[in-house]
Structures are given as structure tokens and as C-alpha cells.
């Protein structure tokens, strides 16, 4: 790559040709404040005007996020003119912003507030008319509050880039501009997957999960048996909320914190994941044996289910009928657990801590119940869990490592742990399918073919008696390629795993925010590496487990012996399986 000579603040540097001023400055150790730019130009509309600098050869000040460097360019970041311009840019954004900072859930992760401090923006500098604002919380997962939106466009780009759906767009023009689903509809009246990836990239509190902390408080106050379960991906990221390095597994501290929060039982969704594998692997084998619809596709990711219903109703028969792990576990808590403990299931409130916003919607689906009782009553994101831990005054980092409760559903295997990363469900299912087909455990246990963070992975797997082709996809833009093959009748695969969020649940829409500007102690490339670091936290926990195949979980075996009978039994179907909606309209007619 050719190099060019530039000067920043009078110092000479050599940098790669073709960079923007912002990127070049970053390579030289300068962090120019910016709001709209992120992820190497994934969104770069130069709309916020916060990154203005002086550069020779340019007329006036330039937006460094889009202006390319040239040979001999001299850049001034801290000249009085540039400093003042950046401050005024931020003050103008603030003049049209809703100030409810201390009750904003983005507080502590707000890039606008951070940048406002950096540039020395004065509060209330400009007064005047404000844009008309809109508030949408008509769905169970997400809240859109345009009074906090700075029109950077990150969410618009993120949605279309990873899913191809592009639910959000700019509407109207000029001062009246706002970001919304087409027609300023609610997320519930548009084909939004509710995955929350837009929430993760939003620099302010304009997009957030819909909090259910109040529901939890009410259940606790009512003296219910409040039973909590935590998804595998939560432990790989929760520590970030307490300043621990990205990729630090905090399983033991998390269990300790949940116990101190007063939950009646603290369980791991990994038990539910093991149960899912028992049902799903057997469903796969039975479809292969009996000529059922193939390829079979996993059904753990509620964002993916939303996508399938909205955009590919033709493939719904390919989906496994299994509920997702936390729904299964919720159903088992309110049936088997309640029976074993002699508790009236009506007095049980099940809470799931999930890396996901779509799970909040999933638990509300009419089919997610058994005997008139909701499988799961409350879903909190990883971020909401961190909030209630902090609220309770628990010093998370000083907690001892504790175990989950061990009775009835305390055991879990490494197969359950890796559900949280793309390829994990596939690998867990293959471990069990291999045993079922060959009668022996596969060696090595790991299926490295389906690991890694690529958008689409494929492999041919030797299951002893048969070889099957499998594929793994995350991000709906990737998944659509596999789905088009199925629609055209050309899919070469027997089994496909699909996860909505790129990289799987470790990168879910309910996970702690990864904002490089707010993480000075992380590596420079943290935005490229955080998914891998979180994935490694799960794979290492899998390796530490003595039991690593779902079918070897003794409490799962006991559950089938004492209660369910066998996988895919009549009772198992009643409690653990679900149906999908073939007639979901993308933009239903408004009433």
C-alpha cells in the first residue's frame, strides 16, 4: 500500500493512502470526536458535523470522517476555529435533544454525552423550536424515542447491512426529519425482527430495549416463587458492564449476584438447551428416517423465527418444531418442577435473563404456554440484569464464584454452553445425533468445521452410518441465501442452523454495548474482536465441563424417566414444541 506524508498539529506522519482524515488521525494516535461515523464507514453520512477539522487544500472546515487525506496535507484538530466549530455542532444537536439523562437507560454508554463533555458543549446554549417527536413502545421488545435521536443513520445502515430488511429509514426532510419504520409505524406493525441490533449501534437513548424491571419488582413484592434462568451468552458479556475485560466469563459471580437479588431458584438455561438438543436431535433423526421435510432448520433464535414468518413463510415446515431453550425450561419449571416441589404453578414467576430483545416478544406469543400458564413471564436483557445488580448495591467484582442451584435442573453440559455462539446449536446437536446413530461418543468431541464467525459455514459431517451436509448462518442477509436454495428445491443440506444476530447470541441485541470510544482500556480493534472474545469465553467453559454431550446430563435423563417418557413423546410435544404463523402480514392494514 502506498504511503502519503501528512502533518497533524505540526507533527509529521506517514500513513496509508486512501484513508479518511479520521482514520489517518486514529492511526497516528488522535481520536477526533465523532457521532455518526462508526465501524470503518459502515455508516458515514457526515451528518453530525462533530468531527470538523482544518485541513490544507480544503475550503473551510471539513468533516474528517469522509474527507480523504492527500500528500502533504496539514491537519489541525485543536485550532481555535476547529475546536469552536465542533463545540457548536454538538450544542446545536443538544438544542434539539430531550434531556432526561439521569433516567435514560443509555446513561453511562451515551456517546452524545461523552462527546459533549469532550468538546466542552455548554448546556442550553441555543434555544428555539424543537422537532416534532415520536415515541413507540407498542411492541414487547424495543422502544423508539425520537426525542433522543440525532439522525446519525447508524441504525438504518445496520439493519439493512446485516439483515437486508432495512426496517428503519429517514422520513420527511429538513428539520422535520425523523427515523422510523415506513409510515412512522410501530415496530409491531412492520416486519421488524425485534433483534435489537439497532439498539446496540445507537449512540444515544433513541433506541432501547423495553425494560421489564418493574414487572420483576412487582413479582418479588407479591411474594411469588420467582425463578430465574440465564442464557449461555450472558455470562460471556455481563462482566463488561462492571468494567471487566471483554471476554471474561463471569458464570460464578453471576450466579452469586442472582442469589443475592432474592430469586427463589437460580438456574442455567443450559439445562433447557440440553433438553432442546434431546428433542431437536431426535426430531432430525426421525425426519431423516421417515422422509420428513429437510433440511431441518433450528428454531432457537426468535429474531430468525420472526424473519422466517415475515419473509419466508414457504420454509416454515423446514423449521424444527422445538421451542427455544428458555421457553422449554419455563414450561418444565411450571410443570415438572412445580409437581416435584409441591408448589402451585400459579405462584411461580419465571424470569429469563437473555442476551436478546426478541425473546421479550417470543415469550408473549400465544402458543408459548401450557395448561393456561405462560412458559416465561419476564425476560430481562443482560444490560437490565446489570442495572438491577448495580441498583441493589452489589459489588459484582468482589463476589465469590458460586454454583447454580443444583436441584432438579442444576446439571448442564458443555453442549448447552456453546448454544450462545453461531454454530453451537449445530455442534451440540451433532454430538448427540452421532451417539444416537453410532452408539459411541464422537472423538474428538469438538466439531471444528462448524466453528468460527463467518456469516455462512458449511461442512460435511460423518455420522458413522451416514454423511450429512450441514450449514450454519447468522445475520439474515446470509441466511436468505440458504433459504433461497430451499425455495428453489436446490438445498444440498440436511440440517441448517440459523441465528439472527451476526455471530450468534454473544452478539445479541440485549448484550452490553461495545463502544470503542468508551472503552479506553480495550484493544484498538475491539469492535472487530469482541465477538471472538465472547465466543472463546463459551468454548473454554465447554472445555472445562466434565459432561459435554446433552444426552449425558443425568438430570435430563431423570426428567425423561420420571416425567416426559422419551424425546418427542406426546407430553414432550405438549410442553416443548410449538407452531408458526404462516400468515403474518409485513405491513398489516391499520385499524
Amino acid at each position, binding site marked *: 500500500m502506498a504511503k502519503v506524508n501528512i502533518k497533524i498539529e505540526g507533527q509529521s506522519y506517514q500513513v496509508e493512502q486512501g484513508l479518511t482524515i479520521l482514520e489517518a488521525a486514529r492511526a497516528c494516535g488522535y481520536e477526533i470526536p465523532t457521532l455518526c461515523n462508526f465501524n470503518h464507514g459502515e455508516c458515514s453520512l457526515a451528518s453530525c458535523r462533530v468531527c470538523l477539522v482544518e485541513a490544507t487544500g480544503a475550503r473551510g472546515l471539513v468533516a474528517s470522517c469522509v474527507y480523504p487525506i492527500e500528500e502533504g496535507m496539514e491537519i489541525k484538530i485543536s485550532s481555535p476555529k476547529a475546536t469552536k466549530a465542533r463545540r457548536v455542532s454538538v450544542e446545536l444537536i443538544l438544542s434539539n435533544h430531550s434531556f432526561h439523562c439521569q433516567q435514560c437507560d443509555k446513561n453511562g454508554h451515551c456517546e452524545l454525552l461523552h462527546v459533549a463533555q469532550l468538546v466542552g458543549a455548554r448546556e442550553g446554549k441555543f434555544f428555539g423550536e424543537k422537532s416534532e417527536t415520536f415515541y413507540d413502545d407498542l411492541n414487547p421488545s424495543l422502544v423508539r424515542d425520537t426525542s433522543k435521536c440525532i439522525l446519525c443513520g447508524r441504525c*438504518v445502515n445496520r439493519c439493512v447491512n446485516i439483515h437486508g430488511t432495512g426496517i428503519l429509514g*429517514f422520513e420527511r426532510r429538513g428539520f422535520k426529519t425523523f427515523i422510523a419504520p*415506513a409510515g412512522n409505524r410501530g415496530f409491531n406493525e412492520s416486519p421488524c425482527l425485534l433483534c435489537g441490533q439497532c439498539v446496540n449501534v445507537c449512540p444515544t437513548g433513541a433506541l432501547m430495549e423495553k425494560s421489564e424491571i418493574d414487572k420483576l419488582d412487582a413479582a418479588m413484592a407479591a411474594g411469588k416463587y420467582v425463578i430465574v434462568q440465564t442464557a449461555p451468552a450472558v455470562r460471556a458479556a455481563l462482566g463488561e458492564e462492571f468494567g471487566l475485560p471483554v471476554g471474561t466469563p463471569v458464570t460464578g459471580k453471576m450466579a452469586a449476584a442472582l442469589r443475592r437479588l432474592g430469586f427463589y431458584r437460580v438456574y442455567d438455561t443450559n439445562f433447557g438447551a440440553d433438553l432442546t438438543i434431546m428433542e431437536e436431535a431426535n426430531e432430525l433423526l426421525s425426519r431423516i428416517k421417515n422422509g420428513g421435510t429437510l433440511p431441518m432448520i433450528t428454531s432457537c433464535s426468535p429474531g430468525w423465527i420472526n424473519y422466517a414468518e415475515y419473509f419466508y413463510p414457504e420454509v416454515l415446515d423446514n423449521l424444527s418444531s422445538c421451542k427455544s431453550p428458555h421457553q422449554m425450561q419455563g414450561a418444565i419449571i411450571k410443570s415438572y418442577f412445580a409437581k416435584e416441589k409441591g408448589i402451585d404453578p400459579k405462584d411461580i414467576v419465571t424470569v429469563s435473563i437473555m442476551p436478546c430483545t426478541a425473546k421479550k416478544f417470543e415469550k408473549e406469543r400465544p402458543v408459548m404456554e401450557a395448561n393456561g400458564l405462560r412458559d416465561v413471564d419476564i425476560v430481562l436483557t443482560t444490560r437490565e440484569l446489570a442495572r438491577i445488580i448495580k441498583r441493589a448495591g452489589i459489588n459484582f467484582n468482589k463476589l465469590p464464584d458460586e454454583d447454580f442451584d443444583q436441584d432438579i435442573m442444576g446439571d448442564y453440559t458443555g453442549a448447552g454452553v456453546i448454544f450462545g455462539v453461531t454454530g453451537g446449536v449445530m455442534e451440540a446437536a451433532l454430538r448427540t445425533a452421532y451417539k444416537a446413530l453410532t452408539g459411541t461418543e464422537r472423538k474428538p468431541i469438538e466439531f471444528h468445521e462448524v466453528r468460527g464467525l463467518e456469516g455462512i459455514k458449511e461442512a460435511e459431517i460423518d455420522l458413522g452410518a451416514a454423511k450429512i451436509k450441514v450449514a450454519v448462518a447468522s445475520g439474515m442477509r446470509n441466511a436468505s441465501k440458504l433459504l433461497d436454495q430451499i425455495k428453489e428445491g436446490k438445498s444440498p443440506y440436511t440440517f441448517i442452523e440459523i441465528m439472527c444476530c451476526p455471530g450468534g447470541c454473544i452478539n445479541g441485541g440485549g448484550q452490553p454495548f461495545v463502544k470503542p470510544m468508551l472503552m479506553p482500556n480495550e484493544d484498538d480493534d475491539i469492535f472487530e474482536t469482541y465477538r471472538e472474545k465472547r465466543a472463546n469465553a463459551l468454548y473454554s467453559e465447554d472445555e472445562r465441563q466434565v459432561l459435554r454431550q446433552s444426552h449425558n446430563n443425568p438430570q435430563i435423563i431423570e426428567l425423561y424417566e420420571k416425567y416426559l417418557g422419551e424425546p418427542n413423546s406426546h407430553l414432550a410435544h405438549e410442553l416443548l414444541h410449538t407452531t408458526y404463523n404462516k400468515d403474518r402480514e409485513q405491513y398489516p392494514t391499520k385499524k
Partner: protein
Amino acid sequence: MGKLNKTAESHILEIIERYKNEKTPLMLILSDIQKEYGYIPLEVQELVSAKTGIPVAEIYGVVTFYSYFSLKPKGKYVIGVCLGTACYVKGSQQIIDKFEELLNIKPGETTEDGLFTIDALRCIGACGIAPAVSINGKVYSKMTVSQVSKVIESYRKEVANV
């Protein structure tokens, strides 16, 4: 979807087909639909999205960005009042106010009888005859507030005589 009738659907598909070789066909498609139907409702945008792969939200953004496009049917007579700089200093704000008062609608709205729509325009390039008003392509030069009611009446008569 499925709210469009078969004739309209096949005609809109035909419009989309016209521009299948264009790199950026959206404006061309929307212009033709606007020209031929007078408006571009959401269900039509959904159809355009399904055929072009452009997200509905992006199409909706384009439709609401340009005042030429309309989400709702426009009236039989579209009254365009120029609020560009030259017309504005010559008093076009008072003229549009008068239209609003007499028709009891705001700019962008249509009267209940479906006859009139008021559009606020930004410079139609007729500064020499400011303030200018354009109704269905017919330009009224050096418009005055007192002429407004007569102009409206002339169109009402036109309808009554048909």
C-alpha cells in the same frame, strides 16, 4: 399486501419492468407511478420494494422527502403556491393563507369533496411574474389576495358545467 386490485398491480409491475436495466431505478419508477395514479400509497411501495429489493422504509423516505410525491390521492385541481424567495417577498404567504382560509385545508391536504389540494412550492422559476400560482400546470402571474376567491370559483364552475 394484497390490498391492490389486479389491474393496478399488473400496471405497476409493468412500470417497474420499464426500468429494470437502470442502476438506480427508484426515482424513475416513483415518478411514473405518481404521474399515472396521482399518489403512491404504502401497499404500492411494498410492491416496488418486493420487486427492486429496496427496503420499504427507504422508498417511504424518498416519497416523503420530495414534495412532488404524495401518499394520498391529490384533488382534481392541485393549487401550487410558490413560496420561493421572490414570490415570498411579493406576498405569496398571504395568498396561500387566503387559499387555506377559503378551502379550509392546510398545505398538502385535500378538500373533502376531492376538488382541491394546496401545495406549498419552493421557487418554480417564474420569479419575473411573482407572486406565481400554478394550478394543474396553468400559471397565474402576479397573483393578488383579492383574486383568490375568483380563481377558486372559476374551477368550481368548470366542474358544475361538465
